[in-house]
């Protein structure tokens, strides 16, 4: 009991400390680098969503590292979980008719929404990761409704490798045609706020979305098909 009261007191203490953070005005004390990003980012890169331009171009190498981490996670899951020899799909309970009909209606729309999110990464709060997760959720819904769904793991890893490959090709193109690795100015910047603007950012985000989506589907498929 005493322990719980102490825990409660600690939480209240932290709440009191953290609460003033809500009132901080984010513009009044920024480092010089952040000020530069905010002042020049929109003009230099032509992206309406400043976070996107920082994540994809200024800090593009970090994003490459994050995708590599996700790739290693997928590979680890596939390596650690043993494949099932005899398929025991018939042990699972079949889904109801309503769920499978609803799934076949919803999955195309979910995929379209995922495509919308990752192609509009430079205009809306979405981006490659979020779009990839939405697409993986669509496949998850298919998995939940159809107990005997088979995955083509070879195709998945092929899609994943090709999108990663083209991602790096675009980065290297930036090195030659524009300012540096993963610079988005290899195409014209277009009109600010338009869909075909911000140079290579929509293409990079589409590749990232496909890559993240196929990696997550790989993880889920491995989890389901292993014993």
């Amino acid at each position, binding site marked *: 009991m005493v322990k719980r009261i102490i825990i409660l007191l600690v*939480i209240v203490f932290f709440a009191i400390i953290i609460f003033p953070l809500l009132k901080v005005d984010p513009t009044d004390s920024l480092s010089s680098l952040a000020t530069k990003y905010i002042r020049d980012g929109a003009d230099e890169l032509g992206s309406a*969503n400043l976070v996107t331009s920082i994540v994809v171009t200024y800090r593009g190498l970090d994003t490459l590292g994050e995708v590599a981490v996700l790739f290693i996670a997928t590979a680890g899951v596939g390596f650690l979980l043993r494949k099932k020899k005899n398929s025991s799909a018939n042990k699972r309970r079949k889904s109801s008719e309503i769920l499978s009909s609803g799934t076949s209606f919803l999955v195309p729309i979910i995929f379209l929404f995922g495509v919308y999110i990752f192609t509009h990464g430079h205009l809306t709060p979405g981006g490659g990761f979020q779009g990839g997760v939405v697409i993986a959720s669509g496949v998850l819904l298919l998995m939940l409704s159809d107990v005997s769904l088979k995955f083509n793991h070879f195709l998945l890893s092929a899609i994943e490798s090709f999108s990663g490959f083209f991602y790096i090709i675009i980065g290297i193109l930036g090195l030659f045609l524009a300012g540096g690795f993963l610079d988005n100015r290899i195409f014209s910047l277009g009109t600010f706020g338009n869909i075909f603007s911000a140079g290579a950012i929509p293409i990079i985000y589409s590749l990232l979305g496909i890559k993240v989506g196929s990696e997550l589907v790989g*993880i889920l498929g491995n989890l389901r098909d292993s014993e």
Partner: protein
Amino acid sequence: MITIIVIVLGLIMIIAAFLAIYQKNLVAAVISAGVISLLASILYLLLAAPDVAMTEAAIGSGLTTVVFLYAISKIKKKDGE
């Protein structure tokens, strides 16, 4: 107004966190953890970070729940055999 929402959501998150820790049933704990990330994404939105809010909503409340459920069902199968 925003302050009221922040306080109420924060309190609910604390209660859900206690539930996630102290509950005996693992699936119930997973559901509580899902509630935490659900509300955390509203708080991120209030702090003007829609990018983070979207990521939290997508990954925290959907995908991790499912991965946890898969893990629990694998563990239970092992125990049963």
